[in-house]
C-alpha cells in the first residue's frame, strides 16, 4: 500500500509587503495509515501552514504532496475540494459548527457535498453521532450544547465521511481541562479503532497522547520522534524479528 501522506521538498512561500516569507522551507515527511501524530511548534513556526497543506486547503510553492498516491500539488480547486471532502476530516479549535443548524444537520453537511442521498446521509450522521456518544443531543443547536459537546459534534462531522485522516487543530484550545481530557479520550479511541489522527498543538500534555511528535521550527522539521511507549513497542517488534 502507498504511503498515506508523502511530502517531498515541500516549500510554501508568501509574498508579504514585498518580502518573501518562507512559511515552509523544505519539508520531507511520510505518514502511514493508523498513525497518531502531533505537530508541535511555537507560533510562526509554520505549523499552521503545515496543517493547511496536509489538509489540502493550500498548495505548495514547490515540492510534491502525495495523498494515497494522488498528486495533491497538481490538483485544481475542485479536485482539492473533493479530496478534502472524501479523505480529510477537520476538527477546529473554535469548533466551527454552523449555528443555525442542529447538531445532526451539521454532521450531515459533508455528506451533502459528497452527493449522498438524504436517507443514507441521516443514517451515517446518526452513526457518527453515536461514535462520539451524543445520540441524545442530535436535534440541539450548537448554542444549546456545552463546549465539549460541540467539539464532539465537530468530531462527528469530521468522521462522518469515513476519511483517511482526521486533522485536528488545537482541538482542546477552547475547552476547560475536563472537557479537554474527554475530547482527547475520544481521539485515543478513534485511533484505536484504526483511524489516522494528526493533532496540531503547542501543549506538551496533548501531544503526549500521540505516538509520534513532529516539531516544526522556522518552516522545517526540527525533530520527528516516537513517544517512549511506542519506541519500546517498536523495539520489541524488532527484537522478535
Amino acid at each position, binding site marked *: 500500500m502507498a504511503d498515506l501522506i508523502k511530502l517531498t521538498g515541500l516549500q510554501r512561500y508568501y509574498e508579504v509587503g514585498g518580502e518573501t516569507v518562507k512559511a515552509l522551507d523544505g519539508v520531507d515527511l511520510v505518514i502511514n495509515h493508523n498513525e497518531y501524530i502531533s505537530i508541535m511548534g511555537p507560533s510562526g513556526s509554520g505549523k499552521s501552514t503545515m496543517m493547511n497543506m496536509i489538509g489540502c486547503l493550500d498548495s505548495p510553492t514547490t515540492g510534491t504532496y502525495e495523498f494515497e498516491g494522488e498528486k495533491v500539488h497538481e490538483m485544481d480547486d475542485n479536485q482539492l475540494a473533493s479530496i478534502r471532502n472524501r479523505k480529510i476530516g477537520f476538527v*477546529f479549535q473554535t469548533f466551527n459548527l454552523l449555528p443555525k443548524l442542529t447538531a445532526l444537520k451539521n454532521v450531515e453537511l*459533508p455528506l451533502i457535498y459528497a452527493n449522498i442521498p438524504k436517507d443514507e446521509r441521516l443514517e451515517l450522521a446518526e452513526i457518527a453521532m453515536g461514535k462520539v456518544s451524543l445520540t441524545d443531543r442530535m436535534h440541539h443547536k450548537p448554542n444549546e450544547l456545552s463546549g465539549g459537546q460541540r467539539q464532539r459534534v465537530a468530531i462527528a462531522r469530521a468522521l462522518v465521511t469515513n476519511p483517511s485522516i482526521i486533522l485536528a487543530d488545537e482541538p482542546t484550545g477552547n475547552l476547560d481541562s475536563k472537557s479537554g481530557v474527554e475530547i482527547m479520550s475520544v481521539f485515543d479511541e478513534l485511533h484505536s479503532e484504526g483511524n489516522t489522527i494528526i493533532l496540531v498543538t503547542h501543549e506538551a500534555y496533548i501531544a503526549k497522547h500521540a505516538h509520534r511528535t513532529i516539531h516544526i521550527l522556522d518552516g522545517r522539521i526540527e525533530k520527528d520522534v516516537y513517544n517512549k511507549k511506542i519506541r519500546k513497542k517498536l523495539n520489541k517488534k524488532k527484537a522478535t524479528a
Partner: protein
Amino acid sequence: MVTYVESVRMALTAIWGNKMRAALTTLGIVIGILAVTLMGTLISGLDRSFEKSMSFLGRDVLYISKHEWFGDSEWWEIRNRPDLKVDYVEKLKDQGKYVVAAAPVAMRSVNITRKDEMAMGISLAGTTTEFTQTAFMNIESGRFYTEGEDRSGARVIVIGYDVANVLFENENPIGEKVKIGNYVFRVIGITEKQGKFLGMFSLDNRAIIPMGTYQRLFSRRGWMRLEVKVDDEHIDDAKDEIIAIMRRLRGLGPEEKNDFAINQQDAFRQQYQTMKIAIGGTGFFITVLSLVVGGIGIMNIMFVSVKERTREIGVRKAIGATQASIMRQFLLEALFICLIGGCVGIVLALGGSFLIDKFVFPSTMPVSLALISLILSSVVGIVAGLAPSYKAARLDPIEALRYE
C-alpha cells in the same frame, strides 16, 4: 442532484433565518412587480371600457360638426364657422353614393318632469328616424317614433334607461305623459341600458324627440351635428366624398379651408393610443426604477450576508464545498428573495386589481403579466446576486476560516 436540492434548502434556510431582513430587502421588488401588474390591469380595464364606449360610435359612422373632436384649431375660428343645417342631410343622401343613412342631431340640456318627480340635466336630442341606424342603441320596450310623427311634429319621446328609472320607479312608462317645460310629451319607448361613454357622460341619461318637434318647440338653430353612416368598405372614399359635398354646399373656393369638421371613431382611437402609451410608459419607468433600486438593495444585502458568513463559507469549503456549490447557494438565496418579492407583489396586485374591478371599472390582471413579473424578478435576483455570490465562491478557505 442532491447538492442542487440541498442548495435550494440551504438558501431557503438562510432566508428564513433572516426573515425581517429578507422582507425589507425585497420590498423594492414587491413595489416594482406591483407597479407593473397594476399598470397592466389598469390598461386592460381601460381597453375594455374604451372598446365598449367605441361600440356606441360606429366605425362606419362619420360625425359632421363645427369642431374637430381632437383638433388644434383656434376657438374663434370654430366659433365663426357657419352652423350646420338639417337640409344638408337630404343633400348628402342624394349626392353621396357611399352614404347609407344620415341623421341630423340637435341637442340641449333640459329637465324632464312628471308629477313630483324631476330628472335634471337630461340631454335632449332632436333627430330623425335614421338616427336608429347611425347610433348604436336598442329599444328595450315600446318603439321609436315613425317618419310620420317626425314630419308632423308629434309630441312623442323616447327616454333613456336612467330617465325611465327616475321618473317611473316600478311603473311602466309607455303611454305615460312627461313634461319638458310646459310642453307635454307621451313616452313611446325606452332605450336599453348602455352605460357611460368613456366614463364621462351617461348614455342612459338622455331623451330623444322628433327633429320636427324639436325645431318647432325649442330652436331652429343652435348646436347640431350630422351623423352619416357610410358603406363600411369605403370609409375613406366616403369621407372624401362627404368633404366634397360639404364644400360645395358651403360654396368654398379651392383656396379656402374647410369650415366644418368630419369626425370619426379613429380620432378617439388615436387619442386613446397616445394616452395608453403615456400610462404604459410611466408604469414602465416606475417599474424599471423600483426594480433597479430593489436589485441594488439585494446586491447590497447579499454582500453583507457573504461578509457575515465568511467563516461559514470557510467551514463549508474545508469540508468539501466546491466554488460552484457556494456560488449556487448564494445565487439561489438572492433569486429566492426576489421571487418571494415577486410573488408577494403579484398577490398584492391581485387584491388591487380586484378592488379596481369592483370599484373603478371592470378589469382583470393579465396572466401573461404575472408570468412576466415572475421572470423579471428572477432576472433581477440573479443579476443582483452574481457579484456577491462570485465573491463568496472565490474566498480563500484559509482566510475565511481565520475571519473573525
